C-alpha cells in the first residue's frame, strides 16, 4: 500500500523543513520526502495549498472508557481526535476501573486497535485506584504499553509518595505528569479565586494552590534526577518557577491548553457550566503571561485536557457541575487562529509543541518528524479556510464546548495515521 502526498508545504521543524515537497508513504512508514517524487502509488493526495505536518499528538485526553461510556468511548474519542487533526492521543487513567494495572492498559490498547483510527497511548495511574496511598506496578504497566504516569484530577497529595513515584520511576525513565493542585487550598472551589469570583459569589481556587505544587514537583524532580511534566499550567506565578528550574537543568516540562490561552475567568459571569474547568479559567493577567511564555518558548506542549461530559452532567447549578471542557475538535483551529494567524508564534513552533515535543516526551522515536523511516502519521492543515465551531457536528459523544459559534481561521483537513487517511472518514 503506497500513498503519495503531493505538493504540500511540509513543515517539520525536527527535519528543518518548511518547503513544498512530496511525501511518499509505504507500509505505514515514510519512504521518501522530496520535490517531484515520481512513484506509482495506490492513492495520491493533492496537498496543494495545504500544510503537511508530522502528526499532532495530544498528550492529555480523557477517553472515559472503560466505565463512563455515556460520555465518550475509545471509538468516539478516536473519531473526535481524527477530526481534530490528532494522529495520537494519550489517555488519562481516571476510568472505571482505573488504569492502574496491566489488564486495563491492555484492554485500552486492544479496543484502540479494534477501532483502528488513531494511536491511543495509555497513561497509567501513579497510585492504585488514584487513591494516593500505594504505587502502581509501574514497570509492569510500562511493559504493557503505558507511556507515562499520572494521577490527573486526583493529584498525589503526599510529598513522600510523589518522591517515591519519581525515584522508583527512574528505573524506567518514567515521565510523571502532574496536575498541580494543593487540594487543601482549593477545597469546594469552583472557579479562579480573584475579583471575578468575589463578584459572582463563587468559591475560589487560588493560583497559589497550583504554584505550591509546581514548586514541590520541581524540588523533588531536581533532588531525584527524575522527569516531571506539569499538566495544563495555568497561572502566571508558575512560569518563573519552571523557567528557573529549566535553567538549572531540571527535567521539567510543561503544557498549556487552548482554553487557558483564549478564555478568562470573566467568562464565568452568567454561571454557564461550560466554562467550569479545572484548573479554572484564570485572570486576564495570567492569560497574557501564559501567552508570552508560549511566545518565548518556555512552554513545551499544547494539550487539550479533553474532558467530555454529557448534557445531563453539565446541566446543573455552577456549584454542582463537573469540571471539564471538550477539546479535541476545537484545539487546532483555536491555536491556528489565536496564536499563529495572530502572529504570536510561527507555524513551525506550533508543530513543535503539538508533535515534536510530545513525541519526545512520550518516547515515540519514529513520530514528530517527516523523514524516511518515520511513522507515516501526518496532519494536513488548511490555514486559509474559515470555520465556525458547531458542537452539533462533534464526533465526540459529548458537546461540552464553550467555543460553539466561534469563527476561526485555519483547520485540520486530513489526518493520516500509519499511511492511511483516517479523516475525512471513509464512509
Amino acid at each position, binding site marked *: 500500500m503506497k500513498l503519495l502526498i503531493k505538493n504540500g508545504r511540509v513543515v517539520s521543524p525536527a527535519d528543518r523543513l518548511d518547503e513544498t515537497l512530496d511525501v511518499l508513504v509505504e507500509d505505514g512508514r515514510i519512504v521518501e520526502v522530496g520535490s517531484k517524487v515520481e512513484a506509482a502509488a495506490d492513492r495520491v493526495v493533492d496537498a496543494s495549498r495545504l500544510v503537511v505536518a508530522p502528526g499532532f499528538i495530544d498528550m492529555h485526553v480523557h477517553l472515559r472508557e472503560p466505565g463512563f461510556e455515556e460520555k465518550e468511548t475509545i471509538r468516539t474519542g478516536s473519531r473526535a481526535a481524527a477530526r481534530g487533526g490528532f494522529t495520537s492521543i494519550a489517555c488519562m487513567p481516571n476510568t472505571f476501573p482505573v488504569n492502574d494495572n496491566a489488564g486495563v492498559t491492555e484492554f485500552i490498547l486492544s479496543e484502540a486497535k479494534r477501532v483502528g483510527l488513531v494511536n491511543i497511548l495509555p497513561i497509567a495511574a501513579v497510585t492504585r485506584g488514584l487513591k494516593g496511598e500505594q504505587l502502581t506496578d509501574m514497570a509492569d504497566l510500562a511493559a504493557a504499553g503505558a507511556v507515562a504516569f499520572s494521577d490527573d484530577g486526583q493529584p498525589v497529595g503526599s510529598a513522600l509518595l510523589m518522591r517515591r513515584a519519581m525515584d522508583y520511576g527512574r528505573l524506567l525513565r518514567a515521565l510523571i505528569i502532574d496536575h498541580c493542585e494543593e487540594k487543601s487550598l482549593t477545597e469546594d472551589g469552583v472557579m479562579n479565586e480573584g*475579583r471575578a469570583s468575589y463578584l459572582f*459569589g463563587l468559591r475560589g481556587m487560588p493560583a497559589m494552590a497550583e504554584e505550591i505544587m509546581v514548586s514541590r514537583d520541581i524540588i523533588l524532580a531536581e533532588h531525584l534526577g527524575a522527569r516531571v511534566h506539569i499538566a495544563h499550567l495555568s497561572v502566571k506565578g508558575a512560569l518563573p518557577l519552571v523557567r528557573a528550574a529549566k535553567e538549572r537543568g531540571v527535567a521539567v516540562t510543561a503544557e498549556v491548553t487552548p482554553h487557558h490561552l483564549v478564555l478568562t475567568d470573566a467568562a464565568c459571569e*452568567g454561571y454557564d457550566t461550560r466554562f467550569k474547568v479545572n484548573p479554572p479559567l484564570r485572570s486576564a493577567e495570567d492569560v497574557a503571561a501564559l501567552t508570552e511564555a508560549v511566545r518565548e518558548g518556555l512552554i513545551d506542549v499544547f494539550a487539550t485536557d479533553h474532558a467530555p461530559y454529557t448534557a445531563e452532567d453539565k*446541566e*446543573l*447549578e455552577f*456549584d454542582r457541575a463537573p469540571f471539564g471542557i471538550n477539546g479535541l475538535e476545537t484545539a487546532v483551529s483555536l491555536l491556528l487562529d489565536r496564536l499563529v494567524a495572530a502572529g504570536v508564534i510561527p507555524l513551525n513552533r506550533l508543530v513543535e509543541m503539538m508533535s515534536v515535543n510530545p513525541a519526545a516526551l512520550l518516547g515515540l522515536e519514529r513520530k514528530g518528524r517527516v523523514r524516511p523511516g518515520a511513522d507515516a502519521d501526518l496532519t494536513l492543515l488548511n490555514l486559509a479556510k474559515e470555520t465556525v465551531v458547531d458542537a452539533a457536528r462533534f464526533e465526540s459523544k459529548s458537546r461540552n464546548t464553550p467555543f460553539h459559534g466561534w469563527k476561526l481561521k485555519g483547520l485540520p483537513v486530513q489526518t493520516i495515521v500509519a499511511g492511511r487517511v483516517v479523516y475525512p472518514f471513509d464512509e
Partner: protein
Amino acid sequence: MEFHQKHLLGIEQLTDAEILAVLDTAESMAEISTREVKKVPTLRGKTILNLFFEASTRTRSSFELAAKRLSADIVNFSQSTSAVTKGESLRDTILTLEAMNPDALVIRHSASGAAHYLTTFCRSHVINAGDGQHEHPTQALLDAFTIRQEKKNFKGLKVVITGDILHSRVARSNMFCLQKLGAQVVLCGPPTLLPDEFRSFGPEVSHDFDLALEDADVVMMLRIQLERMQKSFFPSLREYRNLYCLTPERFKRAKKSAIIMHPGPINRGVEISADMADSAKSVILKQVENGVSVRMAVLYLLLGGKDREAAD
C-alpha cells in the same frame, strides 16, 4: 415609573433610577400594611411560587405576606438542596413546577447563580431571594428603604458594613445598591473574610472596626457563622468579639445620629451586643417591617406593570 426588568436577579444590573422606583413604590405599599384590611386586589389572579431550597423564615414569610396583601396566590415550596441532590435536578424540579403556570418564581438557593440559571429555561419572572454567596437584592432594597426613611438622603452618608463580607450576599447587594444611590460604603472585617480585591468594586476596605466607625451614619452588622471559625477564617468567637462586635463603647465613635442595622438572624453577643441590638438606635425590626413593603413593590413592578399600562 422607571423600572424595565423582567427579573430581579441582583442589584448590580439595576440603575439608580430603577432602585429609586422600587423605593418610591414601596412608600405607597407601606400604607396598605397599616390599614385595618391589609389587602388590595392589584395582583388578583397572579400566581407566585415561593421556592426555598435553603432554610429561611423571614424572607419566605415576607414574600408570602407581600404576595397576599396584593391578592396574588402564593404557594410555598421548601426543599433542602440535599434532598434534591438525591433525585431530580433543579432544572427538572423547576420545569415541573412551572408547568403549573405560575407568573413568578421567587427562589432562594445555596448555589450562587441559581436565579440566573432559572432564567435560561423559565418563562416566568424570576426573583432572587438570595443565591449562595452572590446577591440578595430585596434585602438591599429594604435596607435602602429603611436608610432613606431615617436619613432622607443617601448623598454623603457613610455606611459601614462589618462582618463576613466574603461569604455575604447581603454585603454584595448592599455595596452595589448604596454606592449607586450615592452613599460612601466602608467594608470592614478580618482580612480572611474581606479580600483586598473588594476595593475594585468601589468601597473602602478596612480591617479596623474602631477606625471604620468614625463618623459613620449607618452601622450595618452581618451575622457571623460558626462554620467560618471551624474553617479557620478567624481563631475564636472570643477574638472575633474583641475585634468586631458592635458594643455601646465602640458605637460612640459613630455619629450621634447613627443607626444600627442587621439583616438577621442575630447572634447576640457575637457580632452585636444585646443592648445594641435592642437600643433606640437599632432599626432592625423596622427593616423586617419594611421588607414586606419593598417585596410588595418588587412584585407589583414585575407583575403588575403591563396590566397597569394596558388599563391606562
